[in-house]
């Protein structure tokens, strides 16, 4: 599982029926200190976050589909809103 920041949303009227009612968000992957890295991706919101700039963790690949009851065709899903991260000094 990885960290990221919600930066927007995607609206799609025509989609797989298993995605009806699902919220698709634009997510900027970050490291665990919140620093941005890589290209934004589209993720399914499995926990009801939605607020822009929210710091979250997400799961990729087939495991993402399991986060939702209908097991829709998704390869990334937000699983939780991060309240805080404690990093040990290296």
């Amino acid at each position, binding site marked *: 599982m990885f960290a990221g920041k919600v*930066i*927007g*949303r*995607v*609206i*799609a*009227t*025509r*989609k*797989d*029926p*298993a*995605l009806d009612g699902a919220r*698709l968000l*634009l997510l900027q992957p970050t490291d665990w200190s919140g620093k941005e890295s890589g*290209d*934004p*991706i*589209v*993720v399914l919101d499995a926990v009801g976050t939605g607020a*822009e700039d929210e710091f979250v963790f997400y799961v990729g*690949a*087939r495991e*993402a*589909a399991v986060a939702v009851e209908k*097991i*829709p*065709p*998704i*390869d*990334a899903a937000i699983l939780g809103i991060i309240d805080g991260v404690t990093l040990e000094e290296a």
Partner: protein
Amino acid sequence: MKFARVIGTVVATKKDDKVEGRKLLLVQPVDISFKPSESPAVAIDAVGAGEDELVLLVSGSSARQTEATTNRPCDLVIMAIVDTVEMRGSVIYQKGVND
């Protein structure tokens, strides 16, 4: 999921029975500026996408989770046609306007 543009179709008469009757589209993955980001690939279309449309791609084993691809040998599927993308408070894509 990643954004992609539909750039063509692929026709194959002789193919695996499990992809029989599936629509094969050539897609160009794009980044958040909607510029090409990697090499084009072939995807099974689960939603009736058309040429030039901006779509969402699901890759890997999740690609088998649509009705069109259940238990089929498929690692890339089009599962949504994009209408609007909002980023940091602004609309950065609107179907029909930014195409």
